[in-house]
């Protein structure tokens, strides 16, 4: 184990582990096949407060630091990436409002999810993915209200949320400076959603279009000032990337666990395949990558707990960990041989689930751009430290 856990962290992890393996894990294969979860699937997570672990207690959350929250989410990721992602996307959306909005706005959002509800962060559109600033959804001021129009796509929790943090243009003529952030309750007239996407992996996580047609929200639903939306979204993404990476560490650990157990039982040439040094090399690489990923996530969480904005570190963590995740899950399939390629065994799902993490929350190419830009700026002022 790469990390040092306090007694409190150990107990919390054990409690969540017992719950998630007993109550959630047995239901995952069927949800993965169906591509959706039963409506009450997250009720027990709500009761335990898993969707608000790192949210301050004043807003009904668990008040945990980021380091401990990440440890718990690694455990959830080990059982199912989609299950963990659903909860992470909820507190990430709320965290955006806490970071940028007033305490009243944070409370408005938190009160909808605290008693048992999901939230979503709503940025991407069909023609505005990596180029997020080109989004076309509009929010036009009309007296004491804003009127939203537009179609968002690929929204995690889009069809099952109680409330959204939505990015829209208050000044359609302006670029990044025209974008603003709004709280929009899902039950407002004019809000609708498309069908749940039939995805390759992460099939227990709901993904769909969210459509806003003449949706009216009171002016107090504007988070921050007009025109601040883009920087709010970027700050939120810095924060959420490391959390996605912690889910990935969980998936890597699961891949390793499954592969080692299998290699110890599967016999070929008269002995367990773990006795072959080439199989050991596969497992050793998987273990090394998993442990390195865990340490990287942990350090980024520590930086976040200390108040750093982790622009560069969040992107480094997301890029490196999600790349290693591909390798580790693919190697798990390799260790299983033919059995690794069929749904009867657990590792093909891990490989399917892994791919999305190189794409969502900014593709890894975009992460490289962010890191490159940060380096450019850093060395401009520091001159390389000589």
């Amino acid at each position: 184990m790469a990390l040092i856990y306090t007694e409190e962290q150990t107990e919390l992890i054990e409690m969540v582990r017992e719950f998630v393996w007993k109550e959630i894990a047995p239901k995952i294969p069927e949800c993965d096949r169906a591509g959706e979860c039963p409506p009450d699937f997250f009720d027990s997570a709500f009761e335990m407060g898993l969707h608000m672990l790192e949210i301050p207690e004043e807003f009904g959350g668990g008040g945990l630091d980021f380091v401990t929250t990440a440890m718990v989410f690694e455990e959830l990721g080990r059982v199912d990436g989609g299950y963990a992602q659903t909860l992470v996307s909820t507190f990430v959306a709320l965290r955006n409002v806490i970071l940028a909005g007033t305490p009243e706005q944070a409370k408005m959002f938190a009160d909808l999810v605290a008693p048992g509800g999901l939230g979503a962060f709503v940025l991407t559109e069909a023609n505005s993915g990596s180029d997020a600033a080109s989004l076309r959804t509009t929010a036009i001021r009309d007296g004491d209200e804003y009127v939203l129009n537009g179609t968002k796509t690929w929204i995690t929790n889009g069809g099952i949320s109680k409330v959204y943090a939505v990015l829209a243009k208050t000044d359609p003529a302006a670029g990044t400076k025209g974008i603003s952030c709004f709280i929009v309750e899902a039950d407002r007239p004019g809000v609708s959603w498309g069908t749940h996407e039939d995805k390759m992996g992460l099939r227990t996580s709901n993904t769909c279009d969210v459509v806003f047609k003449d949706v009216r929200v009171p002016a107090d639903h504007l988070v921050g000032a007009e025109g601040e939306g883009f920087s709010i979204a970027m700050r939120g993404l810095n924060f959420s990337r490391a959390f996605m990476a912690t889910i990935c560490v969980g998936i890597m650990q699961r891949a390793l666990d499954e592969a080692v157990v299998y290699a110890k039982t599967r016999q070929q040439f008269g002995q367990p395949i773990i006795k072959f040094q080439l199989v050991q090399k596969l497992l050793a690489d998987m273990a090394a990558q998993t442990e390195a990923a865990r340490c990287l996530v942990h350090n980024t969480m520590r930086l976040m707990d200390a108040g750093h904005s982790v622009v560069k570190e969040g992107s480094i963590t997301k890029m490196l960990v999600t790349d290693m995740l591909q390798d580790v899950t693919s190697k798990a399939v390799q260790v299983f041989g033919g059995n690794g390629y069929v749904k009867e065994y657990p590792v093909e799902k891990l490989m399917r689930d892994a791919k999305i993490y190189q794409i969502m929350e900014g593709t890894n190419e975009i992460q490289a751009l962010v890191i490159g830009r940060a380096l450019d700026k850093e060395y401009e002022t520091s001159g390389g430290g000589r």
Partner: protein
Amino acid sequence: MKILVLVKQVPTDLGAVKLNEDHTLDRTAAGVQLNPVDKNALEAAVQLTEQLGGEVTVLSMGPATVKATLKECVAVGAHRGVAITDEAFAGSDAWATARVLAAAVRHLGGFDLVLAGKQSFDGGTGEVPVMVAELLDLPQVTGVTALEGAADALVCTQVLDGGQAKVQVALPAVVTVDEYVNTPRYPSVKSKLAANKASFDQLTNAELAVPEVGLAASGTTILSATRPPARQPGARVEGDTPAQVAENLVAALVAAHVL
């Protein structure tokens, strides 16, 4: 409603419990947990106070480690925990345990209801709560599968051979539950963290003054104790074709006088 729940700390892994020469048990290697059905007793208590108001106290006799069990109880809704810990109580049998627990119930005082599990995961006699009820001269209903509460009486469902009985019992009373009575809740993260800060009252025989305790007060003497025989591995029936496997299986069943 003031409710007391009797909770026992038991080993997690009975296989790791060692038999001592004197037929007592060495549980040190086994890990500890809250006796599973006691979770149901606690859940029933918490649900009753959620409906009717009141307070839930958990009481456990055992070594110093029972505090961990009490903490677990506070995380799922107990308001208060009391540990009965005293070297003098070591080696107690069901009767000696019941005498101490009854003395503690009297000492703490004022309970409308004492709830307990139907039986423990380790000793498993199911006698302790029955004896506690007799010692306190209280009515008792055992092995309850459903509970409906009112301020001064409970309606308890018991499963009988070929049917069910509904029993109304006036309070105060002792009631033991089985695992079908409810589904215990999981602690929330907040309640779990809050439980870390909880402190517990401790009672020893200095407060309880039970005249005869521990091994000396235990009427039962264990003459011998042995482990159940280890389970034999199953036999694998093989064959080149499904038909052959079936034939071999039938032959094996005939040989074992099953068919």
